[in-house]
């Protein structure tokens, strides 16, 4: 009866919610994009996602073993990192490169900081940056989706090598920018960029699938709308300005939003809670920064895509943002 009663600090009830549940929600949110990737890139997508997930999880397990810490795989955060890393890789990337990237992103991006919650930079983006720096050629070879008929003319298609490859819309827009003409051809690809029937990173290509996933996360309140909205608004504003100045060489802001990793970043990468600010105002600043830097790199910089660098740069200033936008208590600062 009333034996063995326990005591603890209030509150004595809690919401049935766990970190694992949060991560599971994110995985479900990523599922539509996973399906889209498997549809467009077939076996390449499945192999890449499986490789990244398994090697991320394996690295985390090994790091915990070395650090003599308890196993932390059950929080599923390594799985999320693996999927996001796979999503940001070109479909034709060799498996060994994906393994190197996964090991680097978990070991250097996360575990050396102390594991989940302690990392400063988004682990997946750390891994991708490492791969881009190390294997530049592999990281910019884009496969044509398997659904596209070989006879159909796609932009800048190159059918001479083994796998059919093509330039991504963003790479092409870069050429347009340099040639000061031809942006129109990229804008015509907007429909394909929206459904995903276009060359690009695994998970980034289908805007539709990403939007479906984020709607789920927003309904489940797993993420707030602040960061995604801030990223998209600032990127859209930036893109509109350049489009209005010169529509011959600049692609339309909508094409910007649907191309490359911008949606993926706005929905799943910038919203990584560990590396984003805590306060609402901080989230706005962070999101606007991510959007603006991405566009700056796309339009002014040398790279066609700037998502990973913009996220990493904003991750670096997140502690500053948090310090700057401190919350003021409802009753104001105490007088005494």
């Amino acid at each position, binding site marked *: *009866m*009333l*034996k*063995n*009663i*326990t*005591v*603890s*600090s*209030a*509150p*004595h*009830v*809690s*919401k*049935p*919610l*766990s*970190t694992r*549940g*949060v991560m599971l929600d994110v995985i479900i949110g990523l599922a539509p994009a996973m399906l889209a990737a498997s549809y467009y890139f077939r076996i390449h997508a499945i192999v890449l996602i499986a490789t990244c997930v398994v090697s991320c999880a394996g690295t985390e397990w090994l790091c915990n073993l070395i650090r003599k810490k308890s196993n*932390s795989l059950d*929080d599923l*955060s390594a799985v999320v990192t693996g999927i996001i890393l796979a999503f940001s890789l070109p479909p034709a990337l060799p498996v060994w490169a994906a393994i190197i990237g996964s090991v680097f992103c978990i070991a250097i991006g996360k575990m050396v900081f102390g*594991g*989940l*919650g*302690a990392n400063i930079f988004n682990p997946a983006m750390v891994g991708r940056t490492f791969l881009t720096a190390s294997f530049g050629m592999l990281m910019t070879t884009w496969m044509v989706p398997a659904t596209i008929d070989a006879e159909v003319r796609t932009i800048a298609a190159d059918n001479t090598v083994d796998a059919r490859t093509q330039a991504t819309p963003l790479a092409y827009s870069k050429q347009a920018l340099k040639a000061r003409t031809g942006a129109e051809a990229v804008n015509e690809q907007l429909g394909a960029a929206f459904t995903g029937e276009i060359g690009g990173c695994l998970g980034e290509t289908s805007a539709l699938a990403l939007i479906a996933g984020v709607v789920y996360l927003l309904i489940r309140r797993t993420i*707030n709308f602040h960061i995604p909205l801030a990223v998209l608004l600032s990127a859209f504003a930036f893109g509109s300005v350049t489009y209005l100045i010169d529509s011959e060489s600049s692609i339309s802001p909508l094409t910007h939003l649907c191309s490359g990793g911008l949606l993926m970043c706005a929905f799943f990468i910038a919203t990584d*809670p*560990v590396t*984003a600010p*805590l*306060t609402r105002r901080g989230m706005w600043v962070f999101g606007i920064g991510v959007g603006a830097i991405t566009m700056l790199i796309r339009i002014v910089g040398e790279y066609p895509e700037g998502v990973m660098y913009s996220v990493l740069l904003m991750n670096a200033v997140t502690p500053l943002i948090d310090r700057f936008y*401190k*919350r*003021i*208590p*409802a*009753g*104001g*600062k*105490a*007088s*005494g």
Partner: protein
Amino acid sequence: MVVALTGKHTFPGGIHPPQKKALTRDSQIQPGPAAKQISVLLGQHIGAICQPLVKKGDAVEAGQRIGDCDAFVSAPVHSPVSGKVKEIGLRSHAVLGRAQAITIEADENSPEKQPSFQVPADFDLSKYSAEQICEASRAGGLVGMGGAGFPTRVKLEPNPQMPKDNLIINGCECEPYITCDYRIMLEWTSQIIAGLRLAKKASGCSQAFIAIEDNKPKAIEVVRAALESSGNPDQVKVIAVKTKYPQGGERQLIKAVLKKSVPSGSIPPMIGVVVLNVATAAALAEAVIVDVPLTHRVVTVTGEPVVRPGNYYVPIGTSVGDLIEFCGGVTQSAAKVVLGGPMMGIAIADLETPTTKTTNAVTILTKEQIGRAKFDRRETPCIRCGRCLEVCPENLNPTRIAHAVKHDLLDVAERYYMSACMECGCCSYVCPANIEITGFIKTGKIFVARQKKRMA
């Protein structure tokens, strides 16, 4: 008078825990156990602890003052039974750990106080002066019965530096499980209204409100009807507030009803607001009109394991164990006995712990009700998801404060306004990493208090 049954009035933040009020919502206030032995704690309120006025072996009468103190912020304690002082010694205290208590052994023929006080038909407010009401509230040992136990006299007493203009009677009862205030509103409506009028007169407030959460439409209706039938000479407004925890916190209530913020480090009287719990208002009417001190209160004994959960009129000082036994004991294996509700209540280890003036409920929880979270899951690292920031009704950064305390950085914790925390527990409730955020903050506050004491 038309009163909306759904409230738009609310505050930012807050949570919606399962209410569980159906267990005792329809249980009328019944007489509680006639305990053989009562332990009246000498510190049941915020402020100076009382000194005993009786000695071991003395005979005491029901209602006799047995402990008091000269300090302004304090309240005397009275014996709820007639009998003999058996012992003056340490007893478990829910807040203080262990504290002095006067243990009284009740006589065989000790009168049993019934919850029968009715406001007489000839009740005339003009018969009582403001000073009389304040004096009676002090003499009756009245303290805030909603949980904090702030002496009522200190709240009411007019202060030329802080003129009061708004009186809010708090009928929110936002904690899950508890229904004693709800029953009081239904059954003691006239007492509450009399108490409100007395409090309004004593404090000099110009406006009065009764705030009730909109999950109690029946209470809103009953109070409204009672006010209407009495002609409502004081123009009391009934306000339906949104059902959300911690709506009954006075700072949140003031925000919802008056759209005002109480400055951090201040208490409501400093901005001219007096908040009284409905039980306190009813007790005030009793203390002033028939001069009966606060010796009994309604306690909700609840929780799924309790055989006969309900609302009982209990002599203050009855041990929790006696109370549970009176309710038929428990059926399943209980995991926790909590004084108060599950959000802010205090888990006790000693069933001999006496009830106090602020014990509004004894909630018994099993593992299942507590949720698997607190038992099966370990604490995982903070993923900075920001849920605690979203639910914090005081707009703090709970995770930052908690982690500062965890790493012994009390100065950082204070820079993040640790002292503004009211310990409502919303942050711990939502935390997916299962971190005892509220617990860390409470610990931090205690450390800071100790530091200050050492420096003084």
